[in-house]
């Protein structure tokens, strides 16, 4: 910490210089760093969206805001946090963009602007200090998740532009090198500008379809975080967390959209279980999770969201049913007290809505809990052909066969699941189950109590 001797304790704009540590308060540097972090997390998306809407230059807006944050990091600890940190960031970033535009104009370079929908109105420049910035985030989210962009780019771009997640971190979350991710983001931004994907508000019908697409994109990123993939890391909880933040941002700007509320309810409820989902590098099944490690405040919030969902159609209804299933799990004080009948019913509705084989698989599990393993086993018929590469089909069959005392089927199914499973940790879990069955498999092995 540098000495502050000889400096007045109060600067002319009322801020306190760095290094002044009044009794019982945090050092100025720490306070400044915290403010930057908080403003960055809370306001990046809104600031960037407004800059994009004002200037119609994605590249310059992103660079300009990055530069403004860098300057804040340098100056605020030294000079004190400005009275209106968000306004300071906006003004500084906007000045950057204007400088770059001027340089381009002088050099005679004509860079293409973002297309805008007919009738689009540019938001006003923020006025009074302290006035809340216009919220253009929905339009930026719709840009990022446009169906003309490659799926693999959409959520990555949304994390970058809407949440401000650094590119290196996005690369880590999506298991690619920073160079690959940077190239992917650049290509996506070029396509938006070059192909003329427009900024602006779609008509009601189109908006519903586009929001469905956004929800799918976010849900895919979330499930990727909780899907044990190939490689040593079991889960990517951070990726799931970013997806929840994205859903929350979307819900902020599209509060009336049923699919968005259902998505947020679903993700909040599922994510609240994060700390209980793995232990000592192993997956912990829902039944075996230590429920005291669930985030109960988040569950309360998720349950409140889920309770407000009304029956809908299409993807909104799919998400609503899934949210209700998640709510049923979340409100059960113990695994044994889970409302399996209700869950099985919701899965049956979901299956008739989607015809999805994965839903059938989950329904089989629910039915085995509410109606016994034999009923569950019957629902697995025909899934092997449709989900030929999915290790969960034989894994579930093995589990149900074990409960029925059919150790032959259990053994064969565990082996098949082990062959198909790509995740190291999950495979170890399956091997352990197989070993249990084999060691218990005497000439007259009794079924599980």
């Amino acid at each position, binding site marked *: 910490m540098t000495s502050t001797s000889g400096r007045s304790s109060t600067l002319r704009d009322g801020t306190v210089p760095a290094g002044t540590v009044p009794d019982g308060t945090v050092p100025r540097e720490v306070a400044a760093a915290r403010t930057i972090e908080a403003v960055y997390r809370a306001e990046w998306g809104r600031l960037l969206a407004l800059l994009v809407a004002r*200037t119609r230059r994605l590249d310059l807006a992103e660079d300009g805001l990055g530069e403004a944050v860098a300057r804040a990091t340098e100056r605020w600890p030294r000079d004190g946090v400005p009275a209106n940190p968000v306004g300071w960031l906006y003004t500084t970033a906007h000045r950057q963009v204007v400088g770059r535009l001027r340089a381009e*104009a002088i050099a005679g370079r004509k860079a293409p602007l973002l297309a805008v929908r*007919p009738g689009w109105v540019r938001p006003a420049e923020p006025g009074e200090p302290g006035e809340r910035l216009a919220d253009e985030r929905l339009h930026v989210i719709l840009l990022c998740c446009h169906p003309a962009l490659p799926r693999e780019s959409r959520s990555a771009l949304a994390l970058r532009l809407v949440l401000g997640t650094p590119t290196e971190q996005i690369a880590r979350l999506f298991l690619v090198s920073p160079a690959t991710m940077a190239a992917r983001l650049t290509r996506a931004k070029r396509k938006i500008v070059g192909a*003329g994907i*427009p900024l602006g508000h779609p008509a009601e019908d*189109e908006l519903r379809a586009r929001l469905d697409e956004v929800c799918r994109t976010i849900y895919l990123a979330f499930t990727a975080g909780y899907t044990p993939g190939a490689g040593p890391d079991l889960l990517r909880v951070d990726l799931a967390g970013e997806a929840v933040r994205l859903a929350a941002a979307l819900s902020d700007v599209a509060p009336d959209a049923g699919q968005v509320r259902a998505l947020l309810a679903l993700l909040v409820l599922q994510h609240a279980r994060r700390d209980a989902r793995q232990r000592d590098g192993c997956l912990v099944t829902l039944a075996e999770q230590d429920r005291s490690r669930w985030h109960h405040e988040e569950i309360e919030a998720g349950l409140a969201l889920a309770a407000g969902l009304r029956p809908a159609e299409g993807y909104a209804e799919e998400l609503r049913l899934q949210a209700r299933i998640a709510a049923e799990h979340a409100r059960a004080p113990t695994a044994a007290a889970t409302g399996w009948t209700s869950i099985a019913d919701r899965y049956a509705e979901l299956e008739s809505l989607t015809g999805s084989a994965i839903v059938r698989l989950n329904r089989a599990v629910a039915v085995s809990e509410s109606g016994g393993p034999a009923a569950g086993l019957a629902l697995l018929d025909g899934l092997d052909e449709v989900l030929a590469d999915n290790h969960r089909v034989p894994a579930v069959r093995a589990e149900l066969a074990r409960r029925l005392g059919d150790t032959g089927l259990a053994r064969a199914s565990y082996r098949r699941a082990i062959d198909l499973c790509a995740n190291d940790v999950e495979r170890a879990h399956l091997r352990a189950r197989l070993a249990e069955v084999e060691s218990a498999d005497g000439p007259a092995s009794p079924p599980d109590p």
Partner: protein
Amino acid sequence: MLVSAAVADRDQRSLTVKYFVLLAGQGELPPWDQLTPEEQEAGMARHAAFDEACAARPGVEIVSAEALGDGTMATTLRTRGGEMTITDGPFAEAAEQIGGYYLLDAPDLDTVIELCRVLPAYDIDIRPVLDAP
């Protein structure tokens, strides 16, 4: 203010983009020559409806549009090592089905996508035409 004026000026210059709308394949539609005269007429009516929809939309104009001869009429030129070879086309299997194109002025991609819903249910490739440098 100087910059705002510059931005406004740019807005004027970039109100529309040219889009090349390639009718790249028949999709689930049967080949044109297998359609009944009534079905062909219905197809033509959709093209006429597309013309009207474009004309009715501010900022949209059909710059040109043509139907193309099918893949059996294509000739492919390839130059390798400075040597041009001429072969029976098309250059790629996917190009066999190309039926024609529209060249449109339009404000943005979403407008083009929406208008294309009026056309027969072809497989369509939309490309922006690049500005001359």
